[in-house]
């Protein structure tokens, strides 16, 4: 056996990790590292829209970025969007997971049904909610009219103060099941004994939840927050489909702004800088979070 492969270099034989890592590494290099580095390179050029010529001027776009109010608006929108959506999805996800964490009949089916929203493409979800929000025939709008919570003169997605919420609801509808899945996996893996001991010690259900479930789930919750948080920072499709950053720039997130600069202004170098800024914000936030909550993968 051994001798038949002896002519191969050692790093190509199965005992060495390198050949096994090669496929995924090359994918990452081609589709991850190269575009990032290329964007970085691109962001060092100043583009003249009239002549469509680009000139190497490394600090130009980055200075512009810092002075661009729209960027800071977008940062604010993104942070608001991500934190509200994250909180809603986490709270709902944990609550639903607690309800579904049972071995009784029917709960298995319910757990499976829970995952259905995840198979709908985000753009389709956006369109679905767009229809439901429609100010004349949308079911959500009409229900809110009936409850006197909304007036037809201020459509949900057409009003600055409610548009972001409208998008958040769609995102939450789609992604809460993901949280439920993670939380359920965690809850189902919790040992039963400490909870028995706690009830012997006189703990109510709420006290058990607070003193046992939450601390025992903390690692999983932190991981879920990290995964979803990063995802939420990159929010693009819902905004694009539902409001296209409007009204005005009320729902313009960082990625949406980058998209606008790319595809509408065709200012590729500046768009690269905006996109990279998003990446930097995500990386910094995530590593601070990982440090603080000691998340392990």
């Amino acid at each position, binding site marked *: 056996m051994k001798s038949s492969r002896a002519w191969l270099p050692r790093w190509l034989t199965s005992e060495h990790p390198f050949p096994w890592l090669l496929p995924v590494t090359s994918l990452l290099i081609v589709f991850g590292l190269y575009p990032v580095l290329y964007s970085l390179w691109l962001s060092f050029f100043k583009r003249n829209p009239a002549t469509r010529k680009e000139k190497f001027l490394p600090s130009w776009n980055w200075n512009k970025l810092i002075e661009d109010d729209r960027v800071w608006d977008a940062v604010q929108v993104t942070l608001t969007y991500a934190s509200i959506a994250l909180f809603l999805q986490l709270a709902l996800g944990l609550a639903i997971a607690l309800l579904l964490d049972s071995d009784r009949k029917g709960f298995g089916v319910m757990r499976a049904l829970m995952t259905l929203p995840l198979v709908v493409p985000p753009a389709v979800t956006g369109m679905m909610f767009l229809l439901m929000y429609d100010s004349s025939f949308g079911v959500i709008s009409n229900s809110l009219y009936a409850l006197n919570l909304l007036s037809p003169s201020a459509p949900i997605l057409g009003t600055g103060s409610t548009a972001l919420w409208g998008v958040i609801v769609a995102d939450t509808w789609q992604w809460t099941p993901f949280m439920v899945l993670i939380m359920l996996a965690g809850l189902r893996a919790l*040992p039963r*004994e*400490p909870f*028995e*001991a*706690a*009830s*012997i*010690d*006189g*703990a*109510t259900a709420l*006290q058990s939840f607070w*003193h*046992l479930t939450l*601390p*025992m789930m903390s690692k999983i919750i932190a991981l879920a927050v990290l995964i979803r948080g990063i995802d939420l920072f990159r929010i693009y499709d819902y905004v694009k489909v539902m409001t296209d950053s409007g009204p005005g720039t009320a729902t313009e997130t960082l990625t949406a702004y980058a998209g606008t600069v790319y595809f509408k202004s065709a200012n590729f170098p500046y768009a690269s800088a905006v996109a990279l800024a998003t990446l930097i914000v995500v990386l910094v936030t995530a590593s601070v979070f990982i440090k603080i909550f000691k998340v392990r993968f």
Partner: protein
Amino acid sequence: MASVKITDLHKTYGTTKVIEGLDLAVDDGRFVVLLGPSGCGKSTLLRMIAGLESITAGDVLFDDKRVNDVHAKDRNIAMVFQNYALYAHMSVRKNMAFSMRLKKTDKKIIDEKVKWASSILGLDDYLDRLPKELSGGQRQRVAMGRAIVRDPDVFLFDEPLSNLDAKLRVQMRTEIKDLHQRLKTTTIYVTHDQIEAMTMADEVVIMRDGVIEQSGSPMEIYDRPNNLFVAQFIGSPGMNIIECRVTGENGTLYGAAEGLQLPLPSGANVSVGQNIYYGVRPEHFRSSRQVAASAGGKAIAGAVRVVEPTGPEIHVYAKLAGQDICSISRERVIWDPGEEIFFDPDLDHVHLFDGVSKKAL
């Protein structure tokens, strides 16, 4: 404090019957030890009393009040779990203090109680460690501490000393007994260890396959076992049991087995031809080099196999009518393997059991 009463209790898992019609009454302040082979349902019974396991049929009563539907948290019991069930994310101190914290007990009282428990249990140096940083025996003591800081109506202990070394076990045994004598809290204690059962219990309950075989004071169980199972289960080394058939000779009855004629106590409730089990505890089976005078010429002779000196006494194992027999003596006799040995049962302490029903005669 409370009395505990269990009437016609049943527990089944699917089709597996674990407890079958069990009755038990534990008076207020008593120390009852449940003893039985592995898998006989001791833990299940304890967990049903605690309210952690659903009851298939029958009742559990505390102070004559039915508690079947009372949640575990409202039964005011303290329990040491067989698997400890510690709170993995809490320090030893927090584990012990948890029940008091829930009750919003004064911080100073909590500290005092934890200190008191940890000094009894020898855990002073470990109070700030997590359970995963402790040895098995230390964890078990934390589980114990969590129970004794409480002031419950009933203590439930599920083999609380099983993982301790011999010395610590004796020490803890004394502490528990002392605690009980001071607090007089009703206690139900599960163990495999007969010495624990005998030394601690007001009442010993012998279980087998989900039913109670016998209950009574330790000495009662030891001196008057109801049936062959209890006789063999209690005592170490176990009771010598010889299967024999009752024969008569000149009006005197003997138990005959493979060339042996075993003297029966006078007035024994047996009849000629009956198959019986003849039981003698090792300490009631005197051994000597000469045929005992009382044997009336019917020597019970065997061959020495193994001799085990334990210090205070000497255990002599011998082959007798093809069976292994043990005799305990306090005399310093030196035996050689293979040597001929004569036995002399103490007729006041011979136990006879029916060959079919295995009940005491």
